[in-house]
């Protein structure tokens, strides 16, 4: 098999894996937009906050230690214990549920019936507020995140492809883990929305707020629920991205990777987020592989948006988005 074809195959596989990571971020946006019509600018910061909280809990870090020390002249930093990863993930998920309740109770409950742009602005404010709170709670140093996920080249794939094709493919174990987690996450979301009472209520709210309200569904509860789920998705995205780079404040910028995925897959479709992520991942990696060297490289950031724009021109609602019909 020609060498370039093998390289392209390897790039495609890695693009698919990268696409899964993008989709994990995009999923959080979709969940909230679908249920409440809010484009949640804070989704990237939620991933950062969740990852910071997870590491903080795992390491037994005392939240707001700097403030406590400054006020009381103490030298407190750690509780002195380490929390197992699984328990820390559960506790962090609890923090994200509390965060969801606070957001609903103190922000969006007061903004019912406001214009979408007002809600969007509120999420911008929320993003910066949450970033500041994260800094005060856990500090801004870079933290190593190790929840036990394997990282590095998958030897089995490397050896198998080397024997079969004469070239060993590189696939990162972390990307494989992310793919498995994403599959379970999406399956769980689908089962939840299709087969549980709360899930059906969530779908009803997504379809028509007024109708859902008229049959006794609590909008407040549903919105807390959906922000909680989005918080959990943010935690998963934060773990996967944080394991690659350490948990640090640039983690919030992963939202930039989700935008073209949303443009392509649609803002209201969970399958759209997955398929959009895969298309963007493969598209940008193949473009960088084939065209990048001819134009000086570093094409991925802008090419993802070009690809999304191309889809938008022909299908403004995205691949899986609901078709916009204006009846006059």
């Amino acid at each position: 098999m020609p060498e370039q074809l093998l390289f392209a195959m390897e790039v495609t596989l890695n693009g698919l894996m990268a696409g899964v990571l993008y989709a994990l971020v995009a999923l959080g946006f979709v969940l909230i937009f679908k249920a409440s019509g809010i484009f949640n600018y804070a989704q990237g910061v939620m991933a950062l906050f969740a990852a910071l909280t997870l590491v903080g809990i795992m390491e037994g870090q005392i939240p707001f230690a700097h403030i406590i020390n400054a006020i009381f002249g103490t030298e407190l930093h750690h509780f002195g214990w380490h929390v197992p990863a699984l328990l820390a993930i559960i506790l962090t998920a609890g923090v994200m549920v509390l965060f969801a309740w606070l957001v609903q109770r103190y922000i969006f409950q007061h903004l019912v019936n406001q214009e979408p742009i007002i809600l969007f602005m509120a999420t911008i404010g929320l993003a910066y507020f949450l970033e500041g709170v994260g800094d005060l709670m856990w500090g801004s140093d870079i933290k190593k995140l190790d929840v036990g996920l394997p990282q590095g080249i998958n030897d089995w794939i490397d050896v198998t492809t080397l024997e079969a094709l004469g070239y060993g493919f590189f696939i990162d174990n972390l990307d494989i883990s992310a793919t498995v987690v994403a599959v379970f996450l999406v399956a769980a979301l689908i089962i939840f929305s299709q087969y549980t009472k709360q899930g059906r209520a969530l779908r009803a709210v997504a379809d028509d707020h007024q109708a859902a309200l008229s049959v006794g569904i609590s909008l407040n509860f549903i919105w807390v629920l959906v922000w909680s789920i989005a918080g959990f998705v943010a935690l998963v995205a934060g773990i996967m991205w944080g394991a690659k780079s350490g948990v640090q404040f640039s983690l919030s910028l992963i939202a930039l990777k989700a935008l073209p995925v949303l443009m392509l897959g649609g803002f209201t479709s969970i399958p759209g987020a997955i398929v959009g992520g895969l298309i963007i991942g493969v598209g940008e990696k193949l473009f960088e592989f084939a065209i990048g060297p001819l134009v000086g490289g570093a094409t991925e950031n802008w090419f993802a948006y070009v690809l999304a724009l191309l889809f938008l021109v022909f299908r403004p609602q995205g691949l899986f988005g609901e078709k916009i019909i204006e009846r006059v």
Partner: protein
Amino acid sequence: MKFTTLAVAAIMAASPVMADLVFPSLSYRTGPYAANGIPFADGYEDYFTLLNERDGGIGGVPTKVIECETGYNTEKGVECYEATKAEGALVYQPLSTGITYQLIPKVTADGIPLHTMGYGRTSAKNGKVFSNVFNYPANYWDGASHAVNHIMSQGDIKGKKIALVYHNSAYGKEPIRTLEELSKKHGFELTLIPVDHPGQEQKSQWLQIRREKPDNVIMYGWGVMNQVAIQEAANIRFPMENFIGIWWSGSENDVLPAGDKANGYKALTFHNLGDDYPLYDDLRKYVVDAGKAAGAGDQLGTALYNRGMYAAMLAAEAAKTAQELSGQKELTPALMRDGMEALEITEEKMAAIGLPNFGPTFKVSCENHGGDGLGAVAQWDATAGEWSLITGYEGSDQDVIQGLVDEDSAAFAAESNIDEGCK
């Protein structure tokens, strides 16, 4: 009487306190680069606090650090400059190449010196063109040459493949021309691999490295780009001892997330690491233990804290030189500029400060605002969790670099209508 007292008090409050030696700190304690900005800013401020607490300032005149948050954002950096320059600012150190480029014409017009230690516009080394800009003790092009020299010290470089993985910005592109010249001179093959900001996703770049199998990788990165690059290099099992970063890719922040896999990674530096120096005893006694540290006091000895402290030390030494030259204790930016241009760092001076063998010796002059371009190589020991120098401070290839400095500074002089010469 009461009115007069109030008026005098108001005037005194509104005027810059001329008795203080003012050193603005354009810091970034927030945003994606905060983890790097904080230790540098802490080191910078702590050194001046030490001088005040231990020595009563510089030459008996207290120092004052005015901190302004830039968020590593060029526009905010310029705003900070405009907001603080009237406070009697003696020298700016913006810790950002983007901000540096915007400030060069401003500081030149305002007569305030700008010190860009190991960053900024490299050709500012030519003080006959860049009268108010200094980049001692080393610059980006020196760094490129140090990296190549180090590779040459490991064996014949001719015919080798070297990849430059760089932040796709003005900063990251700085060494390209130098490396191209050096590749012609020494016969190695250079591959350029840009990484877009912020650099969280580098799969394509490291797959390319895995395919092309360069013998060595040089990195000019910053922030998350460094951590991801080191992790990806470990993932593809690129030998860490053949991976060398510029000094901005050589802090604890960059290697710790990769854990043991980062062991053996190398980075350039123009100052020493760790806290085994007499000065640090004073920093603990007069600053940290006295509760006057800029931060939590837990960063002493880290690469970026040391760099911030070293930057402050060089500014303080230049201020001392300015006081000696002018015979005045209170300084103006113009006198500070003269002090920087006459600065000489000797080992005796460093030992007297409490930093023996901490940094290279160098001498600044009108023709040479960049010092002697000496740099060393540090290597990360993941088990010990520390950097250690594996070379001494060695020179860069001035035959190549000086020509490039002359060429670039002449172009700047022509486009800015500057007549080259010494003040």
